Protein backbone atom coordinates (compact mmCIF):
# COMPACT_ATOMS: atom_id res chain seq x y z
CA UNK A 1 0.00 0.00 0.00
CA UNK A 2 1.03 3.59 -0.44
CA UNK A 3 1.74 5.12 2.89
CA UNK A 4 2.44 8.55 4.29
CA UNK A 5 4.69 6.92 6.91
CA UNK A 6 8.19 8.35 6.70
CA UNK A 7 6.96 11.63 5.24
CA UNK A 8 6.80 14.68 7.46
CA UNK A 9 3.20 14.53 8.59
CA UNK A 10 1.57 17.87 9.43
CA UNK A 11 -1.33 16.35 11.31
CA UNK A 12 0.97 14.20 13.44
CA UNK A 13 3.07 17.28 14.17
CA UNK A 14 -0.04 19.26 15.14
CA UNK A 15 -1.29 16.53 17.49
CA UNK A 16 2.16 16.19 18.95
CA UNK A 17 2.54 19.91 19.60
CA UNK A 18 -0.86 19.95 21.30
CA UNK A 19 0.35 17.13 23.56
CA UNK A 20 3.61 18.97 24.34
CA UNK A 21 1.71 22.20 25.02
CA UNK A 22 -0.74 20.50 27.39
CA UNK A 23 1.95 18.60 29.26
CA UNK A 24 4.17 21.68 29.62
CA UNK A 25 1.12 23.54 30.92
CA UNK A 26 0.65 20.77 33.48
CA UNK A 27 4.34 21.03 34.36
CA UNK A 28 4.01 24.80 34.93
CA UNK A 29 1.03 24.17 37.20
CA UNK A 30 2.84 21.35 39.02
CA UNK A 31 6.07 23.32 39.43
CA UNK A 32 4.33 25.75 41.76
CA UNK A 33 3.28 22.79 43.90
CA UNK A 34 6.71 21.16 43.98
CA UNK A 35 8.75 22.76 46.76
CA UNK A 36 9.60 19.88 49.12
CA UNK A 37 11.17 16.45 48.66
CA UNK A 38 7.82 14.82 49.46
CA UNK A 39 6.22 16.81 46.65
CA UNK A 40 9.09 16.16 44.24
CA UNK A 41 9.33 12.39 44.78
CA UNK A 42 5.76 11.56 45.77
CA UNK A 43 3.47 14.39 44.57
CA UNK A 44 2.77 15.23 48.20
CA UNK A 45 0.97 11.85 48.53
CA UNK A 46 -2.19 13.47 47.20
CA UNK A 47 -2.81 11.33 44.10
CA UNK A 48 -6.15 9.49 44.19
CA UNK A 49 -6.35 5.71 43.63
CA UNK A 50 -8.08 6.12 40.25
CA UNK A 51 -5.51 8.70 39.12
CA UNK A 52 -2.68 6.45 40.26
CA UNK A 53 -4.28 3.50 38.46
CA UNK A 54 -4.16 5.42 35.18
CA UNK A 55 -0.65 6.68 35.96
CA UNK A 56 0.59 3.14 36.67
CA UNK A 57 -0.92 2.02 33.39
CA UNK A 58 0.72 4.99 31.65
CA UNK A 59 4.11 4.22 33.19
CA UNK A 60 3.84 0.58 32.20
CA UNK A 61 2.37 0.54 28.68
CA UNK A 62 5.43 1.40 26.63
CA UNK A 63 5.81 1.68 22.88
CA UNK A 64 7.04 -1.92 23.04
CA UNK A 65 3.58 -3.00 24.22
CA UNK A 66 1.66 -0.93 21.70
CA UNK A 67 3.74 -0.97 18.52
CA UNK A 68 5.81 -4.04 19.40
CA UNK A 69 3.03 -6.49 20.26
CA UNK A 70 0.76 -5.30 17.44
CA UNK A 71 3.72 -5.79 15.08
CA UNK A 72 4.61 -9.20 16.44
CA UNK A 73 1.02 -10.47 16.24
CA UNK A 74 0.53 -9.07 12.75
CA UNK A 75 3.64 -10.83 11.44
CA UNK A 76 3.71 -14.05 13.51
CA UNK A 77 0.13 -14.45 14.76
CA UNK A 78 -0.41 -16.16 18.09
CA UNK A 79 3.22 -15.93 19.29
CA UNK A 80 2.93 -12.20 19.91
CA UNK A 81 0.19 -12.89 22.44
CA UNK A 82 2.75 -14.53 24.75
CA UNK A 83 3.84 -10.98 25.56
CA UNK A 84 0.27 -9.67 25.90
CA UNK A 85 -0.37 -12.13 28.73
CA UNK A 86 3.14 -12.09 30.25
CA UNK A 87 3.16 -8.34 30.67
CA UNK A 88 -0.09 -8.42 32.65
CA UNK A 89 0.38 -11.34 35.06
CA UNK A 90 3.00 -9.48 37.10
CA UNK A 91 0.33 -7.02 38.31
CA UNK A 92 -1.63 -9.37 40.55
CA UNK A 93 1.73 -10.38 42.09
CA UNK A 94 2.51 -6.71 42.76
CA UNK A 95 -0.88 -6.40 44.46
CA UNK A 96 -0.68 -9.57 46.60
CA UNK A 97 2.93 -9.25 47.74
CA UNK A 98 4.34 -5.76 47.28
CA UNK A 99 2.08 -2.71 46.99
CA UNK A 100 0.67 -2.27 50.51
CA UNK A 101 3.74 -3.24 52.60
CA UNK A 102 5.83 -1.04 50.32
CA UNK A 103 3.54 1.94 50.90
CA UNK A 104 3.56 1.42 54.67
CA UNK A 105 7.29 0.84 55.09
CA UNK A 106 8.91 3.26 52.66
CA UNK A 107 9.02 6.95 51.87
CA UNK A 108 10.25 7.42 48.30
CA UNK A 109 12.19 4.43 46.94
CA UNK A 110 12.07 0.65 47.30
CA UNK A 111 15.49 0.86 48.99
CA UNK A 112 13.66 2.52 51.92
CA UNK A 113 11.89 -0.78 52.45
CA UNK A 114 14.88 -3.10 52.05
CA UNK A 115 16.95 -0.89 54.39
CA UNK A 116 14.15 -0.49 56.94
CA UNK A 117 15.64 -2.77 59.61
CA UNK A 118 19.09 -3.33 58.06
CA UNK A 119 22.27 -1.25 57.85
CA UNK A 120 21.57 1.79 55.71
CA UNK A 121 24.82 2.34 53.81
CA UNK A 122 25.53 -1.10 52.25
CA UNK A 123 21.87 -1.83 51.48
CA UNK A 124 21.29 1.61 49.90
CA UNK A 125 24.36 1.26 47.69
CA UNK A 126 23.28 -2.21 46.52
CA UNK A 127 19.65 -1.18 45.95
CA UNK A 128 20.68 1.95 44.05
CA UNK A 129 22.89 -0.26 41.85
CA UNK A 130 19.92 -2.52 41.07
CA UNK A 131 17.69 0.51 40.41
CA UNK A 132 20.15 2.28 38.15
CA UNK A 133 20.95 -0.88 36.16
CA UNK A 134 17.22 -1.45 35.54
CA UNK A 135 16.59 2.20 34.68
CA UNK A 136 19.58 2.61 32.35
CA UNK A 137 18.85 -0.46 30.21
CA UNK A 138 15.14 0.40 30.06
CA UNK A 139 16.05 3.99 29.10
CA UNK A 140 18.44 2.90 26.34
CA UNK A 141 15.77 0.65 24.85
CA UNK A 142 13.17 3.44 24.98
CA UNK A 143 15.49 6.15 23.59
CA UNK A 144 16.77 4.07 20.67
CA UNK A 145 13.22 2.91 19.97
CA UNK A 146 12.02 6.52 20.15
CA UNK A 147 14.66 7.81 17.75
CA UNK A 148 13.91 5.11 15.19
CA UNK A 149 10.13 5.32 15.43
CA UNK A 150 9.94 9.08 15.38
CA UNK A 151 12.23 9.23 12.39
CA UNK A 152 9.98 6.72 10.64
CA UNK A 153 6.72 8.42 11.57
CA UNK A 154 7.53 12.11 11.43
CA UNK A 155 10.40 12.15 8.98
CA UNK A 156 12.71 14.11 11.31
CA UNK A 157 16.28 13.01 12.02
CA UNK A 158 17.13 10.41 14.65
CA UNK A 159 19.28 12.80 16.67
CA UNK A 160 16.64 15.56 16.64
CA UNK A 161 14.05 13.09 17.87
CA UNK A 162 16.29 11.92 20.73
CA UNK A 163 17.06 15.50 21.79
CA UNK A 164 13.34 16.44 21.76
CA UNK A 165 12.49 13.41 23.90
CA UNK A 166 15.36 14.16 26.30
CA UNK A 167 14.50 17.86 26.62
CA UNK A 168 10.79 17.24 27.29
CA UNK A 169 11.61 14.50 29.80
CA UNK A 170 14.01 16.77 31.70
CA UNK A 171 11.48 19.63 31.70
CA UNK A 172 8.66 17.49 33.17
CA UNK A 173 10.75 15.96 35.94
CA UNK A 174 13.04 18.89 36.76
CA UNK A 175 10.28 21.45 37.24
CA UNK A 176 7.16 19.42 37.89
CA UNK A 177 8.58 16.43 39.77
CA UNK A 178 6.24 13.53 40.49
CA UNK A 179 3.07 15.63 40.19
CA UNK A 180 3.80 16.60 36.57
CA UNK A 181 5.09 13.12 35.76
CA UNK A 182 1.89 11.58 37.16
CA UNK A 183 -0.36 13.80 35.05
CA UNK A 184 1.76 13.21 31.93
CA UNK A 185 1.20 9.47 32.54
CA UNK A 186 -2.54 9.96 33.00
CA UNK A 187 -2.90 12.01 29.78
CA UNK A 188 -0.82 9.47 27.91
CA UNK A 189 -2.77 6.49 29.31
CA UNK A 190 -6.10 8.04 28.27
CA UNK A 191 -4.74 8.85 24.78
CA UNK A 192 -3.23 5.39 24.33
CA UNK A 193 -6.29 3.49 25.58
CA UNK A 194 -8.60 5.76 23.56
CA UNK A 195 -6.49 5.43 20.40
CA UNK A 196 -6.20 1.65 20.71
CA UNK A 197 -9.93 1.31 21.40
CA UNK A 198 -10.89 3.44 18.39
CA UNK A 199 -8.55 1.41 16.21
CA UNK A 200 -9.98 -1.88 17.52
CA UNK A 201 -13.57 -0.74 16.96
CA UNK A 202 -12.77 0.37 13.39
CA UNK A 203 -11.26 -3.09 12.76
CA UNK A 204 -14.17 -4.98 14.30
CA UNK A 205 -16.75 -3.00 12.32
CA UNK A 206 -15.42 -4.82 9.26
CA UNK A 207 -15.85 -8.22 10.95
CA UNK A 208 -19.41 -8.12 12.32
CA UNK A 209 -18.04 -6.82 15.65
CA UNK A 210 -16.92 -10.39 16.34
CA UNK A 211 -13.22 -11.12 17.04
CA UNK A 212 -13.71 -14.78 16.03
CA UNK A 213 -14.71 -13.67 12.51
CA UNK A 214 -11.49 -11.65 12.37
CA UNK A 215 -9.38 -14.60 13.54
CA UNK A 216 -11.14 -16.86 11.01
CA UNK A 217 -10.31 -14.38 8.25
CA UNK A 218 -6.65 -14.43 9.33
CA UNK A 219 -6.62 -18.23 9.31
CA UNK A 220 -8.37 -18.35 5.92
CA UNK A 221 -5.71 -16.13 4.38
CA UNK A 222 -2.51 -17.17 6.16
CA UNK A 223 -3.33 -20.68 7.40
CA UNK A 224 -4.49 -22.10 10.73
CA UNK A 225 -0.88 -21.89 11.99
CA UNK A 226 -1.29 -18.18 12.77
CA UNK A 227 -3.77 -19.08 15.51
CA UNK A 228 -1.36 -21.51 17.23
CA UNK A 229 2.07 -21.40 18.89
CA UNK A 230 4.79 -21.12 16.28
CA UNK A 231 8.52 -20.87 16.16
CA UNK A 232 9.06 -17.95 18.54
CA UNK A 233 9.10 -20.41 21.41
CA UNK A 234 11.02 -23.40 20.13
CA UNK A 235 12.70 -24.17 23.43
CA UNK A 236 10.62 -24.76 26.62
CA UNK A 237 13.41 -23.32 28.81
CA UNK A 238 13.28 -20.03 26.90
CA UNK A 239 9.50 -19.80 27.24
CA UNK A 240 9.53 -20.35 31.00
CA UNK A 241 12.55 -18.10 31.58
CA UNK A 242 11.00 -15.21 29.64
CA UNK A 243 7.72 -15.79 31.50
CA UNK A 244 9.50 -15.55 34.87
CA UNK A 245 11.27 -12.32 33.89
CA UNK A 246 7.99 -10.72 32.76
CA UNK A 247 5.97 -11.92 35.77
CA UNK A 248 8.40 -11.04 38.57
CA UNK A 249 10.13 -8.14 36.82
CA UNK A 250 7.04 -5.96 37.13
CA UNK A 251 7.31 -6.27 40.92
CA UNK A 252 10.89 -4.96 40.80
CA UNK A 253 10.60 -2.02 38.39
CA UNK A 254 11.70 1.09 40.34
CA UNK A 255 9.50 3.56 38.42
CA UNK A 256 6.43 1.41 39.08
CA UNK A 257 7.23 0.81 42.77
CA UNK A 258 7.76 4.54 43.30
CA UNK A 259 4.17 5.26 42.26
CA UNK A 260 2.80 3.61 45.41
CA UNK A 261 4.22 6.46 47.49
CA UNK A 262 2.08 9.02 45.65
CA UNK A 263 -1.20 7.85 47.23
CA UNK A 264 -2.29 8.71 50.78
CA UNK A 265 -2.25 5.21 52.31
CA UNK A 266 -1.95 1.44 51.79
CA UNK A 267 -5.63 1.00 50.98
CA UNK A 268 -5.29 3.54 48.15
CA UNK A 269 -2.21 1.68 46.91
CA UNK A 270 -4.29 -1.50 46.80
CA UNK A 271 -7.15 0.16 44.92
CA UNK A 272 -4.77 1.77 42.44
CA UNK A 273 -3.33 -1.63 41.42
CA UNK A 274 -6.87 -2.90 40.95
CA UNK A 275 -7.56 -0.08 38.47
CA UNK A 276 -4.18 -0.53 36.78
CA UNK A 277 -4.70 -4.28 36.29
CA UNK A 278 -8.09 -3.63 34.73
CA UNK A 279 -6.79 -0.96 32.35
CA UNK A 280 -3.63 -2.80 31.33
CA UNK A 281 -5.48 -6.11 30.83
CA UNK A 282 -8.06 -4.34 28.68
CA UNK A 283 -5.28 -2.79 26.61
CA UNK A 284 -3.59 -6.15 26.06
CA UNK A 285 -6.91 -7.70 24.98
CA UNK A 286 -7.13 -4.90 22.39
CA UNK A 287 -3.68 -5.87 21.08
CA UNK A 288 -5.19 -9.22 19.98
CA UNK A 289 -7.59 -7.29 17.72
CA UNK A 290 -5.01 -4.74 16.51
CA UNK A 291 -2.45 -7.43 15.67
CA UNK A 292 -4.78 -9.73 13.74
CA UNK A 293 -6.54 -6.71 12.23
CA UNK A 294 -3.24 -5.47 10.80
CA UNK A 295 -2.43 -8.98 9.57
CA UNK A 296 -5.68 -9.31 7.63
CA UNK A 297 -6.23 -5.73 6.46
CA UNK A 298 -2.66 -4.52 5.88
CA UNK A 299 -0.81 -7.82 5.44
CA UNK A 300 2.49 -9.04 6.93
CA UNK A 301 4.51 -8.31 3.79
CA UNK A 302 3.34 -4.72 3.55
CA UNK A 303 4.12 -4.26 7.27
CA UNK A 304 7.62 -5.72 6.95
CA UNK A 305 8.26 -3.58 3.87
CA UNK A 306 7.93 -0.41 5.98
CA UNK A 307 9.82 -1.70 9.03
CA UNK A 308 11.52 -5.10 9.28
CA UNK A 309 10.62 -5.45 12.95
CA UNK A 310 6.90 -4.96 12.23
CA UNK A 311 6.68 -1.93 14.53
CA UNK A 312 4.62 0.07 12.04
CA UNK A 313 1.70 -2.39 12.03
CA UNK A 314 -0.56 -0.23 14.23
CA UNK A 315 0.22 3.08 12.45
CA UNK A 316 -0.31 1.39 9.04
CA UNK A 317 -3.61 0.00 10.25
CA UNK A 318 -4.64 3.46 11.45
CA UNK A 319 -3.78 4.97 8.07
CA UNK A 320 -5.76 2.30 6.24
CA UNK A 321 -8.85 2.73 8.43
CA UNK A 322 -8.84 6.46 9.13
CA UNK A 323 -6.52 8.01 6.57
CA UNK A 324 -3.66 10.41 7.21
CA UNK A 325 -5.40 12.25 10.09
CA UNK A 326 -5.82 9.05 12.09
CA UNK A 327 -2.25 8.02 11.26
CA UNK A 328 -1.15 11.40 12.59
CA UNK A 329 -3.10 10.88 15.78
CA UNK A 330 -1.71 7.38 16.38
CA UNK A 331 1.84 8.54 15.61
CA UNK A 332 1.48 11.34 18.14
CA UNK A 333 0.10 8.86 20.69
CA UNK A 334 3.13 6.61 20.15
CA UNK A 335 5.48 9.57 20.67
CA UNK A 336 3.59 10.60 23.82
CA UNK A 337 3.82 7.01 25.04
CA UNK A 338 7.60 6.95 24.81
CA UNK A 339 7.94 10.40 26.33
CA UNK A 340 5.86 9.52 29.37
CA UNK A 341 7.71 6.26 30.03
CA UNK A 342 11.15 7.91 29.91
CA UNK A 343 9.95 10.65 32.28
CA UNK A 344 8.94 8.03 34.85
CA UNK A 345 12.25 6.24 34.44
CA UNK A 346 14.26 9.46 34.83
CA UNK A 347 12.44 10.32 38.06
CA UNK A 348 13.08 6.83 39.49
CA UNK A 349 16.77 6.99 38.56
CA UNK A 350 17.14 10.50 39.99
CA UNK A 351 15.57 9.35 43.28
CA UNK A 352 18.07 6.51 43.59
CA UNK A 353 20.92 8.99 43.10
CA UNK A 354 19.62 11.74 45.39
CA UNK A 355 17.59 9.92 48.06
CA UNK A 356 19.48 6.61 48.33
CA UNK A 357 23.05 7.55 47.43
CA UNK A 358 23.37 11.24 48.33
CA UNK A 359 21.06 11.77 51.30
CA UNK A 360 21.39 8.33 52.93
CA UNK A 361 24.93 7.23 52.04
CA UNK A 362 27.07 10.32 51.41
CA UNK A 363 25.35 12.58 53.96
CA UNK A 364 24.28 9.70 56.26
CA UNK A 365 20.76 11.03 56.66
CA UNK A 366 21.85 14.55 57.60
CA UNK A 367 21.04 16.31 54.32
CA UNK A 368 18.36 18.97 54.63
CA UNK A 369 15.26 18.70 52.50
CA UNK A 370 16.23 21.62 50.30
CA UNK A 371 19.71 20.18 49.76
CA UNK A 372 18.26 16.78 48.77
CA UNK A 373 15.85 18.50 46.41
CA UNK A 374 18.71 20.36 44.69
CA UNK A 375 20.64 17.10 44.30
CA UNK A 376 17.51 15.36 42.93
CA UNK A 377 17.11 18.10 40.31
CA UNK A 378 20.80 17.97 39.37
CA UNK A 379 20.52 14.17 39.12
CA UNK A 380 17.52 14.57 36.78
CA UNK A 381 19.56 16.72 34.41
CA UNK A 382 22.53 14.33 34.56
CA UNK A 383 20.28 11.34 33.83
CA UNK A 384 18.45 13.15 31.04
CA UNK A 385 21.67 14.15 29.30
CA UNK A 386 23.08 10.65 29.83
CA UNK A 387 19.94 9.16 28.27
CA UNK A 388 20.31 11.41 25.20
CA UNK A 389 24.00 10.51 24.82
CA UNK A 390 23.28 6.78 25.25
CA UNK A 391 20.45 7.04 22.73
CA UNK A 392 22.81 8.57 20.19
CA UNK A 393 25.64 6.13 21.03
CA UNK A 394 23.42 3.10 20.49
CA UNK A 395 21.94 4.43 17.22
CA UNK A 396 21.28 1.59 14.80
CA UNK A 397 22.21 -1.09 17.36
CA UNK A 398 19.94 -4.00 18.10
CA UNK A 399 18.63 -3.02 21.53
CA UNK A 400 15.33 -4.91 21.49
CA UNK A 401 16.74 -7.29 24.12
CA UNK A 402 17.31 -4.44 26.58
CA UNK A 403 13.66 -4.27 27.69
CA UNK A 404 13.66 -7.94 28.64
CA UNK A 405 17.12 -7.43 30.17
CA UNK A 406 15.70 -4.62 32.33
CA UNK A 407 12.84 -6.92 33.38
CA UNK A 408 15.32 -9.71 34.17
CA UNK A 409 17.44 -7.38 36.35
CA UNK A 410 14.33 -6.08 38.12
CA UNK A 411 13.11 -9.64 38.69
CA UNK A 412 16.46 -11.02 39.89
CA UNK A 413 18.19 -8.02 41.47
CA UNK A 414 15.35 -6.04 43.07
CA UNK A 415 12.39 -8.36 43.62
CA UNK A 416 13.96 -11.12 45.80
CA UNK A 417 15.58 -8.68 48.26
CA UNK A 418 12.39 -6.64 48.48
CA UNK A 419 10.26 -9.70 49.19
CA UNK A 420 12.69 -11.25 51.71
CA UNK A 421 13.12 -7.96 53.57
CA UNK A 422 9.37 -7.70 54.04
CA UNK A 423 8.52 -11.23 55.05
CA UNK A 424 11.59 -13.01 56.43
CA UNK A 425 12.70 -12.22 60.00
CA UNK A 426 16.27 -13.44 59.61
CA UNK A 427 17.10 -11.55 56.41
CA UNK A 428 20.40 -9.76 57.10
CA UNK A 429 22.30 -6.81 55.66
CA UNK A 430 24.90 -9.10 54.10
CA UNK A 431 22.13 -11.29 52.70
CA UNK A 432 20.36 -8.31 51.12
CA UNK A 433 23.53 -6.92 49.54
CA UNK A 434 24.59 -10.35 48.25
CA UNK A 435 21.12 -11.05 46.81
CA UNK A 436 20.84 -7.72 44.96
CA UNK A 437 24.38 -7.80 43.58
CA UNK A 438 24.17 -11.47 42.57
CA UNK A 439 20.84 -10.88 40.85
CA UNK A 440 21.99 -7.75 39.04
CA UNK A 441 25.47 -8.78 37.94
CA UNK A 442 24.53 -12.44 37.45
CA UNK A 443 21.85 -11.30 34.99
CA UNK A 444 24.31 -9.03 33.16
CA UNK A 445 26.94 -11.77 32.95
CA UNK A 446 24.54 -14.46 31.74
CA UNK A 447 22.91 -12.19 29.17
CA UNK A 448 26.38 -11.43 27.83
CA UNK A 449 27.09 -15.16 27.52
CA UNK A 450 23.61 -15.90 26.07
CA UNK A 451 22.54 -16.29 22.43
CA UNK A 452 20.83 -12.87 22.75
CA UNK A 453 24.23 -11.12 22.70
CA UNK A 454 26.61 -13.74 21.31
CA UNK A 455 24.45 -14.86 18.37
CA UNK A 456 21.95 -12.03 17.69
CA UNK A 457 24.24 -9.05 18.35
CA UNK A 458 27.82 -10.35 17.91
CA UNK A 459 26.86 -12.92 15.23
CA UNK A 460 28.88 -15.77 16.74
CA UNK A 461 27.93 -19.34 15.90
CA UNK A 462 26.73 -20.29 19.37
CA UNK A 463 26.72 -19.17 22.99
CA UNK A 464 28.04 -20.61 26.23
CA UNK A 465 24.76 -20.07 28.11
CA UNK A 466 21.76 -21.68 26.37
CA UNK A 467 18.83 -19.45 27.45
CA UNK A 468 17.95 -16.16 25.75
CA UNK A 469 16.74 -14.72 29.05
CA UNK A 470 18.57 -15.71 32.26
CA UNK A 471 15.67 -15.22 34.74
CA UNK A 472 15.08 -18.97 35.14
CA UNK A 473 18.57 -19.21 36.69
CA UNK A 474 19.10 -15.77 38.22
CA UNK A 475 15.82 -15.41 40.19
CA UNK A 476 16.27 -18.68 42.18
CA UNK A 477 20.00 -17.92 42.50
CA UNK A 478 19.33 -14.48 43.96
CA UNK A 479 16.84 -15.91 46.49
CA UNK A 480 19.26 -18.73 47.41
CA UNK A 481 22.22 -16.39 47.88
CA UNK A 482 20.12 -14.00 49.99
CA UNK A 483 18.92 -16.82 52.23
CA UNK A 484 22.23 -18.67 52.58
CA UNK A 485 24.27 -15.53 53.28
CA UNK A 486 21.69 -14.39 55.86
CA UNK A 487 21.81 -17.74 57.64
CA UNK A 488 25.63 -17.87 57.57
CA UNK A 489 26.10 -14.34 58.87
CA UNK A 490 23.59 -15.29 61.61
CA UNK A 491 22.24 -11.84 62.30
CA UNK A 492 21.28 -10.85 65.79
CA UNK A 493 17.85 -9.67 64.71
CA UNK A 494 16.44 -7.74 67.61
CA UNK A 495 12.93 -9.06 68.08
CA UNK A 496 11.65 -5.60 68.95
CA UNK A 497 13.00 -4.28 65.68
CA UNK A 498 11.14 -6.88 63.64
CA UNK A 499 8.02 -6.32 65.72
CA UNK A 500 8.22 -2.61 64.88
CA UNK A 501 8.76 -3.54 61.23
CA UNK A 502 5.76 -5.85 61.23
CA UNK A 503 3.55 -3.31 62.95
CA UNK A 504 4.40 -0.57 60.46
CA UNK A 505 4.04 -2.99 57.53
CA UNK A 506 0.38 -3.54 58.36
CA UNK A 507 -0.65 -0.38 60.13
CA UNK A 508 1.46 2.28 58.43
CA UNK A 509 3.84 4.84 59.88
CA UNK A 510 2.62 6.37 63.11
CA UNK A 511 5.33 8.91 63.62
CA UNK A 512 6.95 7.09 66.54
Amino acid at each position, binding site marked *: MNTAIGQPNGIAMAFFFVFIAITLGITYWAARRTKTTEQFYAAGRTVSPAQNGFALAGDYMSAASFLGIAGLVSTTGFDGLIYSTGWLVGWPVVL*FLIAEPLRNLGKYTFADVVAFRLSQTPVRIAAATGTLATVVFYLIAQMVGAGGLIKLMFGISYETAIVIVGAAMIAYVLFGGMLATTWVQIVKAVLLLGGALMLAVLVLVRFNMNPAVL*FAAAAARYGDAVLAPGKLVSNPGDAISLGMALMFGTAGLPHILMRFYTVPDA*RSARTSVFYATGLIGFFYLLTFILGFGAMVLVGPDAIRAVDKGGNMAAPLLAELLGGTPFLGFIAAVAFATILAVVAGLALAGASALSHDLWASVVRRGHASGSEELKVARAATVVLGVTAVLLGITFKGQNVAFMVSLAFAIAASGNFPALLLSMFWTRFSTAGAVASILTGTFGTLLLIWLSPTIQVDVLHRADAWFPLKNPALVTIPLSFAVGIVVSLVTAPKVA*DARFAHHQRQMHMGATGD
Partner: protein
Amino acid sequence: MSDPNQDDRAPLRAVARARARIAIILTAAMIAVYFGFISLIAFNPALLARKVSDGLSLGILLGALVIVASWVLTWIYVRWANTHYDTAIKAMGRPKP
Protein backbone atom coordinates in the same frame (compact mmCIF):
# COMPACT_ATOMS: atom_id res chain seq x y z
CA MET B 1 12.81 -10.80 76.89
CA SER B 2 10.26 -9.10 79.07
CA ASP B 3 8.19 -6.92 76.86
CA PRO B 4 5.02 -5.45 78.31
CA ASN B 5 3.58 -5.20 74.80
CA GLN B 6 4.08 -8.90 74.17
CA ASP B 7 0.39 -9.75 74.44
CA ASP B 8 -0.64 -6.79 72.30
CA ARG B 9 1.26 -8.27 69.42
CA ALA B 10 -0.75 -11.49 69.24
CA PRO B 11 -3.64 -10.00 67.22
CA LEU B 12 -1.22 -8.32 64.81
CA ARG B 13 0.61 -11.61 64.31
CA ALA B 14 -2.69 -13.32 63.53
CA VAL B 15 -3.62 -10.67 60.95
CA ALA B 16 -0.14 -10.84 59.43
CA ARG B 17 -0.45 -14.61 59.13
CA ALA B 18 -3.89 -14.38 57.54
CA ARG B 19 -2.70 -11.83 55.00
CA ALA B 20 0.40 -13.86 54.19
CA ARG B 21 -1.76 -16.95 53.66
CA ILE B 22 -4.10 -15.17 51.22
CA ALA B 23 -1.16 -13.56 49.43
CA ILE B 24 0.61 -16.91 49.00
CA ILE B 25 -2.52 -18.76 47.84
CA LEU B 26 -3.44 -16.09 45.27
CA THR B 27 0.16 -15.72 44.03
CA ALA B 28 0.38 -19.51 43.64
CA ALA B 29 -2.88 -19.46 41.70
CA MET B 30 -1.58 -16.75 39.36
CA ILE B 31 1.69 -18.65 38.84
CA ALA B 32 -0.25 -21.87 38.16
CA VAL B 33 -2.51 -20.17 35.59
CA TYR B 34 0.26 -18.37 33.72
CA PHE B 35 2.91 -21.06 33.78
CA GLY B 36 0.24 -23.63 32.94
CA PHE B 37 -0.45 -21.58 29.80
CA ILE B 38 3.26 -21.14 29.01
CA SER B 39 3.90 -24.87 29.57
CA LEU B 40 1.18 -25.74 27.06
CA ILE B 41 2.84 -23.40 24.55
CA ALA B 42 6.20 -25.01 25.26
CA PHE B 43 5.24 -28.67 25.54
CA ASN B 44 1.92 -29.16 23.75
CA PRO B 45 1.43 -26.56 21.01
CA ALA B 46 -0.70 -29.00 19.02
CA LEU B 47 -3.37 -28.90 21.72
CA LEU B 48 -3.50 -25.09 21.59
CA ALA B 49 -3.91 -25.25 17.80
CA ARG B 50 -7.24 -27.08 18.21
CA LYS B 51 -10.28 -25.05 17.23
CA VAL B 52 -12.93 -24.38 19.85
CA SER B 53 -15.20 -22.84 17.24
CA ASP B 54 -14.70 -21.35 13.81
CA GLY B 55 -11.82 -18.86 14.06
CA LEU B 56 -11.20 -19.37 17.76
CA SER B 57 -8.26 -21.62 18.64
CA LEU B 58 -7.86 -22.98 22.15
CA GLY B 59 -4.59 -20.99 22.42
CA ILE B 60 -6.26 -17.62 21.81
CA LEU B 61 -9.15 -18.49 24.11
CA LEU B 62 -6.78 -19.52 26.95
CA GLY B 63 -4.62 -16.43 26.38
CA ALA B 64 -7.67 -14.21 26.87
CA LEU B 65 -8.67 -16.28 29.88
CA VAL B 66 -5.23 -15.69 31.49
CA ILE B 67 -6.05 -11.96 31.37
CA VAL B 68 -9.52 -12.58 32.78
CA ALA B 69 -8.03 -14.77 35.53
CA SER B 70 -5.69 -11.91 36.51
CA TRP B 71 -8.73 -9.66 36.90
CA VAL B 72 -10.65 -12.22 38.93
CA LEU B 73 -7.73 -12.90 41.30
CA THR B 74 -7.08 -9.19 41.93
CA TRP B 75 -10.81 -8.71 42.54
CA ILE B 76 -10.85 -11.58 45.09
CA TYR B 77 -7.90 -10.08 46.94
CA VAL B 78 -9.28 -6.53 46.98
CA ARG B 79 -12.62 -7.80 48.25
CA TRP B 80 -10.97 -9.82 51.02
CA ALA B 81 -8.67 -6.97 52.04
CA ASN B 82 -11.38 -4.30 51.98
CA THR B 83 -13.61 -6.33 54.27
CA HIS B 84 -11.58 -8.69 56.48
CA TYR B 85 -8.08 -7.21 56.56
CA ASP B 86 -9.02 -3.55 56.95
CA THR B 87 -11.57 -4.39 59.64
CA ALA B 88 -9.06 -6.41 61.63
CA ILE B 89 -6.43 -3.67 61.40
CA LYS B 90 -8.95 -1.04 62.42
CA ALA B 91 -10.10 -3.16 65.35
CA MET B 92 -6.58 -3.11 66.75
CA GLY B 93 -6.59 0.67 66.73
CA ARG B 94 -3.45 2.70 66.47
CA PRO B 95 -0.45 1.01 68.09
CA LYS B 96 0.52 2.29 71.54
CA PRO B 97 3.34 4.83 71.53
